[in-house]
């Protein structure tokens, strides 16, 4: 009963969120807030996607930029070859991401800890090298993307991307929330705590990890797809930028990895700070700030914003903790 009520609240907030995004696009003339806001939404999707494998299953993935970049180039290829509309680009990118997630998972998920992480870094380099040598999508110099007219009722492409981003956040978060509360989430958590004990308790560890990798990969790739149109340009160096890997990981860790809301909060905090710094100081400073905040949180609040919140609440209610 309580769970059903919570589900109802979640969907109400989600509808309100998308509704507010849509209303804003019609009532605000200036494009800049949507230009900046889109990036925050994009990172919410990336951090949430990262958390499904990195947070729930404990497999630290440095390959976010590989998936993201592949999403960008799936869209570029589709657009150049067939002129496919945005939603088709995103859907195909999600499928490509799922496939890559499956293949990578099959190859790497038998490795534990640091070995898995190193393998995922290599992934970015492999795919980027491939794209650099593919003339059709522009090779190393990249290629400009000429935006088609925005679909009605939107009057600008950026505003359309913004609302689209809001919907993607809802889809990503709803998926993460579903996984967290289901047997999949409990199985992932068990294998994160102790993989051997999980297998001996009947948990199909490899299958669950693969599933997490597929879902996570699909979301990351889907998040990349609109980026080429967003920038009106695609080049390998920025599409496969390691910053995506570091940011997604940092946002999830800073927000808190145990709960679906963690990465959302982390992305909101970090990404808006970065936007603010980019505008007021310079875009170079925001990388520095990312690093500093990560260090700060690792030292002062290792369980992220959520852990901090729990500690404060425990102090006020006098509960020693226990239930998470």
């Amino acid at each position, binding site marked *: 009963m309580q769970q059903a009520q919570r589900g109802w609240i979640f969907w109400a907030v989600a509808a309100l969120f998308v509704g507010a995004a849509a209303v804003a696009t019609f009532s605000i003339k200036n494009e800049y807030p949507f230009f900046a806001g889109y990036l925050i939404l994009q990172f919410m999707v990336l951090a949430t996607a990262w958390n499904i494998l990195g947070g729930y299953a404990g497999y630290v993935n440095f390959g976010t930029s590989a998936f993201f970049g592949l999403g960008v180039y799936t869209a570029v290829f589709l657009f150049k070859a067939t002129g496919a509309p945005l939603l088709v680009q995103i859907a195909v990118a999600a499928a490509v991401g799922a496939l890559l997630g499956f293949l990578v998972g099959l190859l790497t998920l038998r490795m534990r800890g640091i070995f898995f992480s190193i393998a995922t870094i290599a992934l970015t380099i492999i795919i980027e090298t491939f794209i650099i040598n593919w003339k059709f999508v522009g090779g190393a110099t990249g290629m400009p993307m000429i935006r088609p007219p925005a679909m009605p009722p939107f009057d600008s492409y950026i505003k359309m991307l913004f609302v689209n981003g809001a919907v993607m956040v809802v889809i990503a978060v709803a998926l993460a929330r579903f996984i967290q509360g289901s*047997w999949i989430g*409990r*199985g992932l*958590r*068990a294998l*994160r*705590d*102790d993989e*051997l*004990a*999980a*297998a*001996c*308790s*009947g*948990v*199909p*560890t*490899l299958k669950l990890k693969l599933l997490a990798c597929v879902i996570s990969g699909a979301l990351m790739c889907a998040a990349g797809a609109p980026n080429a149109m967003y920038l009106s340009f695609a080049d390998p160096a920025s599409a496969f930028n390691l910053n995506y890997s570091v940011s997604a990981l940092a946002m999830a860790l800073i927000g808190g990895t*145990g709960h679906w809301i963690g990465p959302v909060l982390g992305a909101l905090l970090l990404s808006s700070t970065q936007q603010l710094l980019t505008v007021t100081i310079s875009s170079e400073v925001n990388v520095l700030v990312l690093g500093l905040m990560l260090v700060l949180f690792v030292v002062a609040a290792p369980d992220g914003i959520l852990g901090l919140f729990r500690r404060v609440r425990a102090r006020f209610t006098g509960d020693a*903790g*226990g*239930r*998470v």
Partner: protein
Amino acid sequence: MSQALLDVKGVTKRFGGFTALDAVSVAIRPGERFGLVGPNGSGKTTLINCISGVLGLDKGTISFLGADISKLPTYLRTRRGIARSFQIPRPFRTMTVIENLMVAFEFTAGHGGHQSHDEAMALLEQMGLGAKAFRPSSELSQVELRKMELARAMAARPKLLISDEAMAGLSSAEIDEVLDLLIKVNQDGITIIMIEHIMHAVMRFSERVMCLDAGRIIASGTPAEVMADQRVQEAYLGASSQG
């Protein structure tokens, strides 16, 4: 039923040039209380790892309920009814005690929410951990961790329970407590293989005992027979035979 519940045939396991198990064969009968003893490094835990699927075999077969399970992954063996505890407890640390059990319930018996919760609670009461159900497993004492490991193994609804040194490091009162639990579990119809160094526990518990040394079976029979066996005494005490 005369058919063996678990039939280990000619199992050999090598780690590089070291032979940890050398053509070990043993058949466990349904409902039996079976003790597995042997000095450190004799291959007891390796045998258990082979039975539960943590390690693959180099030679031989393992059958359970008449079906060859040698190639099955661990989780499927658990679902068929082979559950185990670990020599060094391996709790799911970020979960509460009851959640630890619910994982095993959920992944072996299907995906029931409320039902698995009630059954996990009943099992914890039976194991004397009812009061700790909603505490994080990281707060448990050593004896409580051992009990939770057994309870979690029981939550997988096993036909065969393998207890790997569940009593190591416990006081003698605690040993009796755990021993009583295991005997009660067995009376409910669950076959048990107990690995133990604590001899009086093995003697009291087992109907049949097998002793391993350097990967080979050196004695098998009633507890009294095995303890009286000269090779067993040599393996344990290192005494040279003096006729």
